[in-house]
């Protein structure tokens, strides 16, 4: 990247951070509350409205039912909070519903909760930001036409903030969250005072509604189900226990309690005011319910705008909760092999960038599909919430039964009761919302589960194969090296290939070309190496030739295809200029038991008189590894056949947990070569490999560094996305390094 491009990138997302900068900053309760509770508190901005929307179908008279229904929802909220205080005690390590369900109820329940939560986080972003957009539109009705664009812009903004990463975000959270709480309390108290002599009326009061339905038990249940949006976000605290100050469980439980008191009082207060100011709310309403109530109580004064701004802010912060939750959950799922491993990578700013980007794209898609319509989006929302509530509590009950800690009966009873209640609510939510949108989630959840299970099966298969004990290379007779040099032109790169091959003392070196004109210069360069001309300029002939050669060799031997090439200039277009060669290499890598060895040479690095083949005096072999498995053993065995000056395995410690075990595994495998664990502070493998290799000061003539990359090849093309493209990235970066030879050793599963 050019310097100005670097400068621009840093201006937007910030300077790359080294892994050492990842540290836990523990949060006091006062900061933890706004960080984790913004999601739960923000649902106060739309929960009442959702109840009203259902009741409106029955007519104006039914609207007073909002208060009893709100009280019922508040009761449910209280039950869930009491129950979750037990979960927080049981799981001081945090982890939330997924960990609890996986650990206690098994794989399928873990999958279900994982899938439900992922979908739920996506919906949290769509719903919260759409609602935030509604609050802005309520204050500035002129923006109503730009609703979708405004919502997408807000998502982009939050995404960017999260890609930058924000350790210091706690304090930023505090102001709007507490501001919102205080503002709503001011609204409720002012409203109560003003209501003493007859309440001020909302702008929509007295509007006539044409009843579309009878007041039935089903409508009541539906209104109740709509109101349960007030419960969303409660689980965030249970997931964040490890970030609390000590004593963590106790502080988290206290914070949950405070959250419960705040939520319940705000919810009932707003619902009561809605009833007494006679708000009539329909899908066509220009302003949200909270906006209408605030307008009735404060008139159009500054306090009205303050409430709108704080509402918009807290809704955006609620979306932010999902931005912390989703990427962390995705990384945990990836660690458990249920999601592609790329979700474990931390980006430049130490955040799980891939998770953040996927979350942003999915949420934006939903916003576009549902036209930034909150009432439609919210229909999808609750299934996942209550599914994870129910399974988390059920899992905790199982845990209490197993551990039988003092007082477990009481805790188990609380969780069992909470789980039963949320289970019933789950059924109610599904029944009442099925037609209006819940069916989408009911279809999507198993689909996501199915995909995750497929990913899991694939990774399990791969790791089983890689650890398969049938391969015990060190007990075997070491194989011999055979080389085939693919000569496109007889040039300095070809000369280096000849020198390299000779230095291995291999008894079998041959060359092939497509061009008979190469014979004369070849005889001058390497009279001892036979050159064969393949009839046609077709790769298939070469492949057939190589396959025949391979078939004639013993299984333990290695057949290496060397592809020397002189590159005119550094840069991408060099790769594009020779598409044929790169297609060929890609094909060769998939051939069983054939190694492809790149000898690239920049035209500018060619010194005088190097058209002669000179054997390098020193050849340092670096085998890139990240774990000890069969593909690595194969690569090391291959490295030995090169008869290099020395062999070492290097791991760049990109996976801290794997690295932790690496030393022991290395010694257990009794591999007779040193292992180095080298830092990669900015998690950029290509750059770190180059920095590492520079210490050998390779010149390509006397000193060569051979980078050996163990590569396991999966049989199905589509499975390739589940694996990193380490080999590709490293090869591309090393292509322009003088004196560096790259060889991938495929291991076919």
């Amino acid at each position, binding site marked *: 990247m050019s*310097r*100005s491009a*670097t*400068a621009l990138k*840093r*201006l937007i997302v910030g*300077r*790359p951070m*080294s*892994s*050492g*900068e990842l*540290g836990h900053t523990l949060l006091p309760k006062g900061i933890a509350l706004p960080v984790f509770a913004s999601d739960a508190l923000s649902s106060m901005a739309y929960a009442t409205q959702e109840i009203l929307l259902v009741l409106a179908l029955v007519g104006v008279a039914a609207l007073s039912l909002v208060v009893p229904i709100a009280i019922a929802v508040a009761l449910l909220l209280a039950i869930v909070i009491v129950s979750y205080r037990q979960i927080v005690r049981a799981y001081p390590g945090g982890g939330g519903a997924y960990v609890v369900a996986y650990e206690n109820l098994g794989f399928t329940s873990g999958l279900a909760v994982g899938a439900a939560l992922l979908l739920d986080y996506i919906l949290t972003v769509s719903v919260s930001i759409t609602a935030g957009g509604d609050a802005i539109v309520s204050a500035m009705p002129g923006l109503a036409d730009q609703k979708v664009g405004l919502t997408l812009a807000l998502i982009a903004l939050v995404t960017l903030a999260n890609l930058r990463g924000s350790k210091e975000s706690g304090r930023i959270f505090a102001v709007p969250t507490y501001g919102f709480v205080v503002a709503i309390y001011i609204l409720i108290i002012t409203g109560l005072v003003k209501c003493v002599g007859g309440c001020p009326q909302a702008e929509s009061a007295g509007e006539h509604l044409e009843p579309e339905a009878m007041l039935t038990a089903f409508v009541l249940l539906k209104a109740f189900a709509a109101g349960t949006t007030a419960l969303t976000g409660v689980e965030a605290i249970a997931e964040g226990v490890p970030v609390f100050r000590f004593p963590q469980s106790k502080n988290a439980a206290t914070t949950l309690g405070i959250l419960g008191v705040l939520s319940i009082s705000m919810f009932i207060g707003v619902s009561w005011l809605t009833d007494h100011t006679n708000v009539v709310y329909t899908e066509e309403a220009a302003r949200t319910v909270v906006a209408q109530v605030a307008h009735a109580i404060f008139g159009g004064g500054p306090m009205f705008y303050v409430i709108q701004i704080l509402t918009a802010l807290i809704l955006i912060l609620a979306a932010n909760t999902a931005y912390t939750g989703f990427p962390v959950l995705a990384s945990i799922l990836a660690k458990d092999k249920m999601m592609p491993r790329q979700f474990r990578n931390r980006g430049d700013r130490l955040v799980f960038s891939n998770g953040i980007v996927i979350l942003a794209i999915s949420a934006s898609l939903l916003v576009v599909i549902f036209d930034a319509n909150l009432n439609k989006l919210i229909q999808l929302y609750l299934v996942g919430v209550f599914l994870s509530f129910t399974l988390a509590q059920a899992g905790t009950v199982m845990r209490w039964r197993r551990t039988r800690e003092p007082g477990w009966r009481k805790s188990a009873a609380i969780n069992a009761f909470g789980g039963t209640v949320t289970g019933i609510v789950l059924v109610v939510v599904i029944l009442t919302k099925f037609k209006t949108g819940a069916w989408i989630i009911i279809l999507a959840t198993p689909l996501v589960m199915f995909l995750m299970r497929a990913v899991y099966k694939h990774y399990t298969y791969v790791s089983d194969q890689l650890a398969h004990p049938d391969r015990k290379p060190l007990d075997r007779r070491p194989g011999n090296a055979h080389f085939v040099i693919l000569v496109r032109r007889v040039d300095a790169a070809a000369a280096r290939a000849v020198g390299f091959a000779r230095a291995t003392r291999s008894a079998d070196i041959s060359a092939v070309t497509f061009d008979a004109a190469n014979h004369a210069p070849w005889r001058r360069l390497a009279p001892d190496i036979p050159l064969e001309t393949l009839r046609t300029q077709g790769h298939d002939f070469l492949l057939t030739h190589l396959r025949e050669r391979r078939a004639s060799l013993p299984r333990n031997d290695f057949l290496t295809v060397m592809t020397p090439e002189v590159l005119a200039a550094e840069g991408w277009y060099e790769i594009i200029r020779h598409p044929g060669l790169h297609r060929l290499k890609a094909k060769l890598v998939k051939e069983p038991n054939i190694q492809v060895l790149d000898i690239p040479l920049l035209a500018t690095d060619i010194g005088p008189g190097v058209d002669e083949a000179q054997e390098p005096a020193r050849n340092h072999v670096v085998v890139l590894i990240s774990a000890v498995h069969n593909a690595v053993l194969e690569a090391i065995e291959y490295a030995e056949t090169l008869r290099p000056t020395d062999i070492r395995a290097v791991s760049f*410690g990109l996976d801290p947990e794997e*690295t*932790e075990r690496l*030393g*022991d595994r*290395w*010694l257990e495998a*009794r*591999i*007779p*070569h*040193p*292992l*180095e*664990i*080298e*830092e990669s*502070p*900015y998690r950029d493998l290509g750059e770190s490999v180059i920095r590492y290799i520079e210490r050998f000061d390779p010149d390509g003539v006397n000193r060569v560094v051979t980078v050996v990359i163990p590569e396991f090849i999966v049989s199905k093309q589509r499975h390739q996305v589940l694996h990193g493209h380490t080999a590709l990235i490293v090869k591309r970066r090393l292509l322009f390094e003088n004196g560096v030879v790259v060889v991938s050793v495929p291991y076919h599963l």
Partner: protein
Amino acid sequence: MAFLRELVDKLARPVHDIRAERLQEWARSIEGTVPIAEAQCRCRCKIAGVIQNIRIDPREASGSIEATVNDGTGRMVVKWLGRQQLSGIRLGAGLIFEGTVGEGPRKRLQVLNPEYQLLPAPEHG
């Protein structure tokens, strides 16, 4: 334009330079230590640095473990003979060690079997 160029310079500054500067600051803050760049052969020095490479070599008779530390002024190898595992020696950890500086293979500065103390990773290491 000059201002703009300055801004680009500042923004595009190599991260490794920034890191080296922070490491130096951190190492200086630890009392009694000598920067690696100033450590002479055969001096008995106390040095603080961050572990950037760990090497185990199963070929040596009773094993050895090597850590390469960096304090922002240079790199030095710390080597413990006769063992293959040392708890707490991990990438990014801060290491304070005291021993006689010698010359290892390839003229690298090296300290054998020093007394050492581990520190949590410096925040910006």
